[in-house]
């Protein structure tokens, strides 16, 4: 079964091409916005008929793409790394797509060939005629961590242009229910719903089965490992206990030492940041970035970023965030380890639509770029920036601090080196019992918990995403997952309580 994957590629751009490329990308991006607004006008009856579609190389017929969930082009302007070395400009291209990759790239080229040619002709090197596919594949960049809010669902299943998507099904079912008179009993409701589904021509599509339930590795491995441990514990209980204790001690010592060194390094990093700041002076206006290595430190960048948000015709927003990694191999190693853990959690544990407790992220991705000197973050999320950041801070501050405390100008964080393991244990144990005060359930008390400073830091390193496309702009993550539940429950046999639960979803 094809599953959702992430494609990203980076292309160098010469300085003289930055401005013209930016102009072209802006035009492409504005066409997406305009088309969506025209669509909204039509829906709201403000426009009588379909206006003529604009043509030309700036216009991509995104609606013809069947494999794309989200797509973006972002121009990374020339910048400097944490040690003051220059980073030249590049163009990032990223999609969240339904696999396989080959077919996805083929479709992109078939639908948007001229636009791809036009955009990538500004890159260095430009693609050779007819060689777009190897060009794109050669520039591919792997991600460190990838999260999906509704894994296993294809674009066609979620939204689709056919009448067979789960959203179309939900609408058909809703219309059936709205017909007078309303069903009087649960059984009557189910009969009505099944009849409506039949009328709408809905049939369970091949991809509509159980969403993939990723496991923590093969079951036989865990049974085997468990058996070996049990045997060991039974044969020599005292040695088993000693080994477990020794393991814990070594782990605590290792993490504790590691954290202590990072805390020491942090003093040096803070001093360096202060020096840099003094050297380059304060930002030109109060909302500008404190980080002197942000390419445009003025409020202008912030205004461009916010102007792209909360547009009509979509309930989602996106974020492209790029920031320097603090210098030193330990920082990079820590960052990689944390992202590895996040990736593992994201692909194995958080598969029911929530990252931690955050139920609003469609796709998120962390990529190391520029020879591991910068961390690039892409996110496609529901609702406003303010709510997204609020969720981050209130529900996932540990993860955020764990990742971004390794990057420059992040709100000061003291790693509780010797307490990390005990706190982590308490956190895992306390997820079952919901009592106790909230602050006891966090690894870090600072970092992202410094609400105002963290929000400002996030804005400081956010850059405008010139082209951003969403295949289902009016669906939230919760909607997508709910639609799947509706579709799956339609012909299932329910017990009384289950039936009530399913009917509440319709």
């Amino acid at each position, binding site marked *: 079964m094809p599953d959702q994957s992430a494609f990203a590629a980076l292309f160098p751009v010469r300085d003289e091409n930055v401005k013209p490329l930016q102009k072209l990308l802006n035009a492409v991006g504005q066409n997406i916005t305009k088309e969506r607004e025209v669509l909204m006008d039509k*829906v*709201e*009856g403000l426009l009588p008929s379909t206006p003529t579609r604009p043509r030309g190389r700036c216009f991509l017929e995104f609606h013809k793409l069947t494999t794309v969930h989200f797509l973006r082009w972002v121009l990374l302007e020339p910048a400097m790394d944490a040690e003051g070395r220059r980073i030249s400009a590049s163009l990032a291209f990223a999609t969240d797509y339904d696999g396989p990759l080959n077919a996805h790239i083929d479709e992109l080229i078939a639908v948007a060939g001229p636009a791809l040619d036009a955009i990538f002709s500004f890159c260095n090197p430009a693609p050779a005629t007819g060689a777009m596919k190897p060009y794109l594949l050669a520039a591919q960049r792997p991600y460190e961590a990838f999260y999906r809010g509704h894994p296993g669902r294809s674009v066609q299943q979620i939204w689709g242009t056919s009448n067979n998507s789960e959203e179309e099904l*939900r609408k058909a079912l*809703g219309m059936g*229910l*709205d017909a*007078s008179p*309303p*069903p*009087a*009993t*649960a059984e*009557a*409701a189910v009969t009505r719903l099944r009849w409506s589904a039949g009328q709408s021509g809905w049939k369970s599509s091949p991809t509509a089965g159980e969403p993939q339930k990723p496991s923590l590795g093969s079951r036989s491995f865990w049974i085997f490992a468990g058996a070996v441990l049990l045997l060991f514990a039974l044969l020599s209980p005292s040695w088993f206990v000693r080994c477990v204790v020794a393991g814990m001690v070594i782990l605590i010592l290792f993490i504790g030492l590691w954290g202590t060194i990072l805390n020491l390094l942090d003093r040096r990093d803070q001093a360096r940041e202060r020096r840099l700041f003094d050297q380059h002076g304060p930002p030109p*206006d*109060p*909302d500008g970035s404190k980080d002197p290595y942000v390419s445009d430190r003025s409020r202008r960048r912030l*205004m461009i970023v*916010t*102007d792209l*948000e*909360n*547009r*009509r015709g979509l*309930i989602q927003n996106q974020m492209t965030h790029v920031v320097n990694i603090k210098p030193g191999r330990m920082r990079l190693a820590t960052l990689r380890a944390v992202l590895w853990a996040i990736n593992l959690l994201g692909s194995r544990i958080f598969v029911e639509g929530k990252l931690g*407790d955050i*139920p609003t992220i469609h796709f998120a991705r962390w990529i190391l770029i520029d020879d591991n000197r910068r961390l690039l973050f892409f996110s496609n999320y*529901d*609702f*406003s920036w*303010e*709510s997204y950041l*609020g969720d981050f*801070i*209130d529900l996932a501050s540990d993860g955020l601090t764990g990742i971004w405390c390794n990057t420059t100008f992040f709100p000061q964080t003291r790693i509780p080196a010797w307490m990390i393991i005990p706190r982590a244990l308490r956190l895992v144990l306390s997820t079952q019992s*919901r*009592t106790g005060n*909230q602050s006891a359930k966090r690894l870090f008390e600072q970092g992202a*918990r*410094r*609400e*105002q400073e963290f929000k400002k830091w996030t804005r400081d390193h956010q850059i405008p995403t010139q082209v951003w496309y969403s295949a289902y702009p009016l669906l*939230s993550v*919760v*909607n997508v997952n*709910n639609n799947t539940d509706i579709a799956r429950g339609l012909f299932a046999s329910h017990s009384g309580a289950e039936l*009530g639960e399913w*009917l*509440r979803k*319709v």
Partner: protein
Amino acid sequence: MGLAGDFDVEFRDIQGLVQRGYKELPAAEFVLLQVIDAKRARAWLSKLADRIEPATATGHDKADRASALHLALTYQGLQALGVGKELLDKFPLAFREGMATVHRERLLGDRGASSAANWRWGSAPCQPNADEEGLCETDPKLHLLLLMYAKDGPTLSHIKKSVLDELDMSGLHTITGLDTVFLAGPECDPTGNPNGPKEHFGFRDGIAQPHIAGMPSREDGHAIPGNIIPTGEILLGYANAYGEMPEGPTDANGHGFGRNGTFLVFRQLHQDVVGFWNYVARQAADKGYGPVELAAKMVGRWPDGTPLVESPTGPQPTLQTHDRFVYARHQTHPDPFGFHCPIGSHIRRTNPRDSLNDDPQKSVTLSNQHRIVRRGRSYGNPLVPNMDPAKLMAAPDDGVERGLHFLCLNAAIDRQFEFVQNLWANNPKFGGLYDDPDPLIGVLDGERSTFTVQQEPVRCTYSDMPRFVQVRGGAYFFLPGIAAIRMLGSMK
């Protein structure tokens, strides 16, 4: 976080409006002013500072209070009075930008008839740009907001005269005066102190208010766990929900110009009362609810104020101002699925209490990070004098402009007022719904907007909802501490 008395709140410096809504002073008028001559205006401010009603340590009302005066300023107002850039730059971005920007119009849902381009006040004349969106900005001439409250009409006229007569001499120009009315419903005690006014749709308003830690209050609900918010959620200079000083002109210890001040959000909201009751009467007919019942489902309270979650079948006189309830884990009427009080009803979505997510305790904490203190007053003559829903429904359209001067106080406009309006009221996806903005104050899209009543065996949906509330004007003000007003007055 403690109850009253745990730490020092400087009552004498805080404008009394933070503590009370002056329900005992039913006459009120709000005046928008422009500073023409900074020097004379500052002298006027110095004198006015002595007349501003402060908060009190006990929270009890003075029995003999006949009037109250309050003053707030826009960013442009502070500028016009000569406040320096260094201080101005410390104010948060939302306040500095003001309400009428393209970005905030999108956040707040101010488009179409509600677009800042069509406002009566608060926005500068706009030029339509290529994107067909009015490129608006906050009115640079709107500087001060004077709030006047009095026990009756004659007293108000007297106050008004005493304050405004010297205006021209004081280097100030009146932009506009905004009248208010006090709508007392049939339940209110006609002789004395009506304990809760109505709004124009016919519902009791202003019941649920957060209790500000350290600030005793008679009228602002109960200081019960789950309803107490840190002082810094409303007042600058005190720790907020994250244990930090709210952004603004104070130092790390909370001292400075901003101390004891708060941000006042003012929006003039036009209410289409005839449209609302017509819709309700039309829709209720074929789906098994009476019109008042459907309207109550949309609001979350019966017209007299009784919460639906407590009494889903009808109003109860003892529960008219009842606010001590939760939804998901209600002790006697748990309502996690919205069968009593719909998930999308106005009061449930603008203050979700324990029903924001699956964890009731955490949900209360998170909901309380977005509380506001409401101080609104209605304006325009009511459609029918006694606000009886049956009569409201039967009344023909009289074409009168009426609505609510929505005023609220908060320390972080973006995390509190804007968040509630954007994520909870305007968001059609609230609580897992699909096309349901707030039925009262949301951006309703007509054909696409619905209101869902959760019930057994299956939900019932009302569609084709037009927008019942339009924005007619608005601005972000700073309501400073009284010492800060004196400071402004004594600037050279």
